[in-house]
């Protein structure tokens, strides 16, 4: 036999490698910014961009959680109603505590909403994993449940935050830290923490493994139930964090709060490059996806071409084009 060194000359791993899957959503984002600028130069004004990015924080934070769920092979349609429900719970408990605690009721409220979010996530997780029900249906069910609960809590009306708390709480949405709006800071912190968990811990590795191939994960001694349940719990916590930022912005929880957020969240995750069938999650892509969605809506307001009736159509077209850009740039 001749020696073996001759084999293996076809090198498939390029030396210099840009991860195009990760870059895709950012390219789409750049394209959108360009189009926006051409449509209306105001679009790129610092003020406008700050506004848009700030308000994309809710969806971004929730979508970061959804990246875990989707990466682990699940799906969560209940996030919008869950956001409304935990917001309601938070405001009710803060208002009740405000009399005794004063503004430190806000701290208590934050603790309570985190607990509520985690519990809601746990419920979703347990139904999906222990009940072994298709995530689509399970979370469609809890979506109805959370929505009904907030309707019940608000008697069909709205739950406004107590006046005495309003001003103390305001900076959480309207304030800024070193010139960066607080919600942006919070979402960056959430995204950093999430990338750490997803890319740097055993749990994150296992999350992707469960989503990529459940059987293989199980045979490798990974508890699929546990991993997926935790993903839903993380989702719940993210919803709670989003709720914390949300309250000062709108000052009330209503039965229509968070309506259809689930669609935006899933869209952000998918535009971000995470496949709906599970596997590797792309946290920063997700964040870019959330910003893209908010930018599209912003562009619709800033441009004057489109009949009000057709806004949804143009939005649909842009989302499809964004996906094409994202896909083709791989």
């Amino acid at each position: 036999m001749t020696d073996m060194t001759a084999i293996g000359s076809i090198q498939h791993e390029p030396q210099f490698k840009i991860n195009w899957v990760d870059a895709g959503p950012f390219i789409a984002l750049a394209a959108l910014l360009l189009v926006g600028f051409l449509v209306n130069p105001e679009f790129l004004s610092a003020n406008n961009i700050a506004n848009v990015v700030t308000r994309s924080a809710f969806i971004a934070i929730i979508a970061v959680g959804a990246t875990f769920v989707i990466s682990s092979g699940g799906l969560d349609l209940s996030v919008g109603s869950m956001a409304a429900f935990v917001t309601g719970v938070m405001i009710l408990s803060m208002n009740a505590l405000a009399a005794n605690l004063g503004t430190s009721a806000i701290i208590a409220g934050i603790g309570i909403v985190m607990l509520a979010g985690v519990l809601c996530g746990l419920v979703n997780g347990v139904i999906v994993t222990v009940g072994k029900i298709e995530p689509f249906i399970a979370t469609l069910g809890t979506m109805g449940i959370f929505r009904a609960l907030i309707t019940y809590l608000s008697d069909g009306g709205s739950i406004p935050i107590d006046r005495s708390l309003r001003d103390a709480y305001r900076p959480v949405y309207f304030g800024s830290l070193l010139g960066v709006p607080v919600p942006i800071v919070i979402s960056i912190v959430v995204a950093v923490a999430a990338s750490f968990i997803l890319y740097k811990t055993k749990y994150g590795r296992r999350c992707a493994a469960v989503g990529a191939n459940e059987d293989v994960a199980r045979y490798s001694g990974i508890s699929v139930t546990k991993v997926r349940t935790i993903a839903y719990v993380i989702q719940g916590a993210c919803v709670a964090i989003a709720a914390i930022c949300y309250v000062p912005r709108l000052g009330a929880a209503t039965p229509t709060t968070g309506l259809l957020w689930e669609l935006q969240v899933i869209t952000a995750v998918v535009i971000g490059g995470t496949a709906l069938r599970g596997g590797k999650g792309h946290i920063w892509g997700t964040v870019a996806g959330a910003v893209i969605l908010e930018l599209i809506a912003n562009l619709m307001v800033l441009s004057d071409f489109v009949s009000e009736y057709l806004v949804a159509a143009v939005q649909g077209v842009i989302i499809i084009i964004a996906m094409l850009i994202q896909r083709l740039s791989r």
Partner: protein
Amino acid sequence: MPRPVLEAKGLAKKYGQVSVLSDVTLDIRAGEVHAIIGENGAGKSTLMRLLSGYVEPTSGSLWMDSAEVVFPKPAMAQASGIVLVHQEILLAEALTVAENLFLGRELTRNGIIDDRTMQRITSSKLAEIGCRVSPSALVRDISLADRQLVQIARALLDNYRLVIFDEPTAVLTSDEVETLLAIIVRLKNQGIAILYISHRLDEVQRLADRVTVLRDGKMIGTYPGRTLSQMDMANLMVGRELATLYPKKSIRCISEPMLEVSGATVPGFVSDISFAVHKGEILGFGGMIGAGRTELFEGILGLRPGTAKLRLRGESIHIRKPLDAIEAGIGYLTEDRKGKGLLLGEQLASNLTLSALSRVHPHRLLRKSRDREALVHAVDTYDIRLKSYSLQAGQLSGGNQQKLLLAKVLLTNPSVVIIDEPTRGIDIANKAQIYSFIHKLVETGKACIVISSEMQELIGICDRILVMREGRISGEVTGADMTENKIALLATSNVSMSKEFQGVRHT
């Protein structure tokens, strides 16, 4: 005599009413290679799954260190030091090689995933067994053989007391097999117990200290390895005397070209290959793993991007999509039966007829009875061993899946049959059947291309062998030149080609 690492007493497994394994009693000792042989569907893989916690036995018990053990989960067997390398590849395709290797036992430093170390260990473990893929390559992108090696590396990562190999060599070429066998000997010398399943009886003969024979789910007996010849083993497995393996090469008139391929290029894998296969000819394709044989044919047949000029019976044809090939009468049997060949969750009959729906059902409507007829006929012709016609394809044993796949491809009645690894995982008795079948095919005026990593097989059945290396044809051997040495030389070095090979022979 060393103490047994694991003892099985009266193990039996039933799926519903169907018994696939009964009353198996066996012990595996530290520092021995214990081979399990048997025909396709004899229950070897089932037995291994019972021993390693993937399947729970219907009755019987397992004992380690004189205490009864139960393994409700594979992880528990692994914790007790027992690991199984599956016959079918079980890796997460969307993850990298290193991630797969360390799945479920990731290394961390201060709670943070330590990718650097894992990749380094992966590299060295893979190098040890002669696998050269990058640890950061996605499993999806590596060849089947490499996947198998990754699976093996996974089992060698920790110090297990018993390593079970279920047909580890089925997808490997001879060099890789040698490396693997050397590793197995090393493990054995370290006092590790090895259970080894293979249909390549020469390996069994070289390695095994003891051989246990299964036939139709029952234990025939355990024999000291060296006392058995390959023929003895085959006879024990089958329960009757076996004829020769390879059919006599008949003298056929090979003149008329059937399929001519020129300038075939598959970006990244194959560049500018030309060859022809003739009516009545069996043309072999040899080479090392990664030579690009699979890609060549997938490119030609529209299964992956590639260009080629094709002439079938002298007339030029264009194949843009897989259906064009099937309609033109070119059948291709993929090497990846699990991922690309069969719908594992579907019934046998619907799998069988999937590419030949219009042939099997000439009328507008599907008729169950025609499906059934086709299945009964295929089971009969290809000797597919099954206990019930209503199984799903995934419930067949590996070798029988392969036969089903062969039946599926031949059901389209191709005039050129391209078979990628025709006897992967097929037992010795059935190999002979498949060889004779291929011969019958070409005797009826068809042409056949066989891609195989088993050089003996190529030599045994082919009229002519083309050897590929690094995406090109490095030489051709015919007649008396068809020896393992010649082929291996062409497959691995680039010096020899100038003298013996002057390009493709066109007639």
